[in-house]
């Protein structure tokens, strides 16, 4: 009986669990072969990770939200709103740099708490709550900045995103790595992480098991908001300005990274590294297509097709596993 229950770890299972990694490696290998000189240079590779970092930060927060079965469309607008706030607090000689760093993160977290409370206590679908936030805070960013980018930021502020560790690793890459490490730790090792999966898997059973479901939901939206605020800070630093029109469509790229990473849109299923690879893959393909001189219009078609097939493979895999 025990023998019959023991499942063989088949090649198919292996590919299903790690297929994304292979797909990623295959794309990288193909680009190395097609364009060894331009693509495989260390500088270019670091640049790719740097490209992926802001989206990666957003996608990390998005992953937590999607794991609970929700969605956060407001992150792009939070990037713009917190970006203009950060830039306006970063004029040379006005405030300490810490203010310009903390304010956007806290504002983002506060917006996240608003989203989370509306979803949890108000029982409004996440799509609608965050769609409303997305529109509202885009407006707030435009009001705050009078519709024009905020310039004149201090050198220290500029350094936040454009500095290097040891002279060659961009700070952006370091932030992305640290946030990824923390998110992996939280999801795998902590009680909170386990609760996130439980709430996404079956919120009713989670509540009956004594989990404060509302607190978990507010928590993930707050986290997503805080990370979006941090991304807003990074983008403002990188562009040396706070633009009220920045971050448009960022929420969709973040969602794309999470989906490519194999996180289930219905919640409860997904690994931390999936999102990292999802974000990197988007960046690698963008970079590779640039190097291969593919037009930006075609790049959109290819990116859409990749998202489509990632989900298709994922769904088909699940069906055949039954």
């Amino acid at each position, binding site marked *: 009986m025990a023998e019959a*229950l023991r499942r063989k770890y088949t090649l198919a299972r292996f590919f299903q669990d790690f297929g994304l990694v292979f797909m990623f490696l295959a794309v990288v290998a193909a680009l190395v072969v097609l364009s060894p000189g331009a693509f495989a240079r260390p500088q270019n590779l670091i640049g790719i990770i740097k490209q992926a970092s802001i989206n990666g930060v957003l996608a990390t927060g998005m992953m937590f939200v999607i794991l609970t079965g929700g969605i956060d469309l407001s992150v792009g607008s939070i990037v713009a709103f917190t970006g203009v706030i950060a830039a306006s607090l970063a004029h040379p000689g006005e405030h300490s740099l810490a203010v310009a760093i903390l304010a956007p993160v806290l504002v983002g977290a506060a917006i996240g708490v608003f989203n989370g409370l509306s979803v949890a206590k108000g029982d409004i679908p996440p799509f609608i709550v965050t769609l409303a936030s997305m529109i509202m805070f885009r407006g707030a960013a435009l009001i705050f900045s009078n519709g024009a980018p905020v310039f004149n930021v201090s050198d220290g502020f500029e350094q936040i995103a454009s500095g290097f560790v040891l002279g060659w690793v961009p700070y952006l890459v370091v932030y992305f790595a640290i946030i990824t490490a923390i998110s992996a730790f939280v999801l795998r090792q902590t*009680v909170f992480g386990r609760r996130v*999966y439980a709430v996404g*898997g079956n919120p009713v059973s989670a509540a009956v098991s004594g989990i404060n479901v509302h607190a978990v939901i507010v928590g993930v939206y707050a986290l997503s908001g805080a990370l979006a605020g941090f991304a807003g800070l990074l983008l403002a630093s990188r562009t040396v300005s706070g633009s009220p029109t920045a971050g448009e469509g960022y929420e969709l790229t973040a969602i794309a990274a999470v989906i490519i990473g194999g996180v289930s849109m219905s919640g409860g299923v997904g690994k931390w590294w999936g999102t990292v690879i999802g974000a990197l893959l988007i960046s690698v393909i963008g970079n590779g297509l640039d190097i291969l001189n593919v037009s930006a219009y075609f790049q959109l078609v290819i990116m859409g097709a990749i998202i489509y097939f990632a989900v298709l493979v994922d769904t088909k895999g699940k069906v055949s596993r039954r």
Partner: protein
Amino acid sequence: MANANLLEMRGICKSYADVPVLDSVDFRVGRGEVHALMGENGAGKSTLVKILMGIVPRNAGEIILDGRAVTFRSPREAMDGGLAMIHQELNPVLDLEVAENIFLGREVRSLSLGPLSTVNRRRMRQDCQALFDRFEIPISPTAMMRELSVAQMQLVEIVKAISLSSKVVIMDEPTSAITEREVAILFRQINLMRERGVSVIYISHKIEEVFQIADRITVLRDGRQVGADAVSALSRDALIKLMVGREITNFLPKETVPIGEVVLEVSGLTWGRRVLDVSFAVRAGEILGLAGLVGAGRSETVETLFGMHKASAGEIRIRGRQAAIRSPRGAIKRRIALITEDRKMTGLNLVGTVEENISIAALDRVSRFGMIRKRREHASADEYIQRMNIKTFSRAALVSSLSGGNQQKVVLAKWLLTDPDVVIFDEPTRGIDVGAKREIYLLIGELVRHGKAVVLISSELLEIMGLADRILVMAAGRLTGEVQRRDFSQERIMELAARFNEVEHG
């Protein structure tokens, strides 16, 4: 009359990824025969009927229906061939009316224009009413499906199956969600079908029912057919022995354990109109049964007590001290565990692993400073997998890959890990096989031996009478009586359970 075989399945074999599920199974059903298909979970019953219905392909064997060899490649083909299946979990379209559900996919048309055809709703309602009249079913064709009870939905499904002019109707655990009174209605319909020469394949775990309704029984065990005989030739014990492959003596063991102090006391508990002024107390070492018809408010009572609903009145005392329980969290802190009725809806995270499900209610016991101590978690999971005899290939297996009985054991393990003083079971053995049932009975016995207080809700009278020390009976949200073990009788309990007429509804 039942000698001419309407359906014959010969030498059916099926394996999934090298694991044989069915091994050369023979199954014969006579015309106008009610044929029970029995066996423990995982014995292969579902696979056999899925092969019949064209849901999964077979590896070998043949199917002969009405003298012709057939192979259905989809449920649609099977339906056209005269087979109909009423699934255990019904999937009606809740926002359509009854008549529309009956004719779903084959609507009566007034104008035939392909996809633009118009539906003749009036005709459909008339045809539906005619069917209902013929089977004496008191449901309005214009009622919305959502308004019906589970039993009524089942009747609608049955009528639908018959209206397809089916020769064979397959019923998978049709009574798992309905009351004894509704079972009687169902059985009357089955008898009517039998009279009309329709064959019924009746899958059930409930031995009493099978003896009541079936003509013949086929038993599967571990993918093999181990017996097929007329009901009159089988005894209850012989049937159980066939199913589990070993003698089960003392099927409902009742131990006498010393009964101690009152652990939990509920007084005047009220939740809206569903739970009305319910008071009871349960002592350490005691099994308190809670009987009643489905909808009597038993589940709602324990759910309110557990903090799942906001009580509008009432007081809960634990060991004499007043406890304000506002959420399941509060109840767990006060050492109460509730094994809920519906394991898929409220008991399990089906996309989670066995281990994640076992530890979710007791994460504080396997963590420090908010961090999970994996080694400790693995140890507890393994301990309970072994102690509860959960059949799984690893603690990391998805809980959805387990059979119903083993899933239920995972739910039990989850709650035992919280180390409760009061354990409330709400229909703990619904839809699970005989072997797993017995293990759950033994576990309940073990709990009271260790001085836990147990509250047991069950709609199976034999089960609740076999286990409980005392039975409280509910009807229409109120307690209608209490019966001591020495006075237990089905008649007495049913009489109390039907006392809802005395309660005014206005």
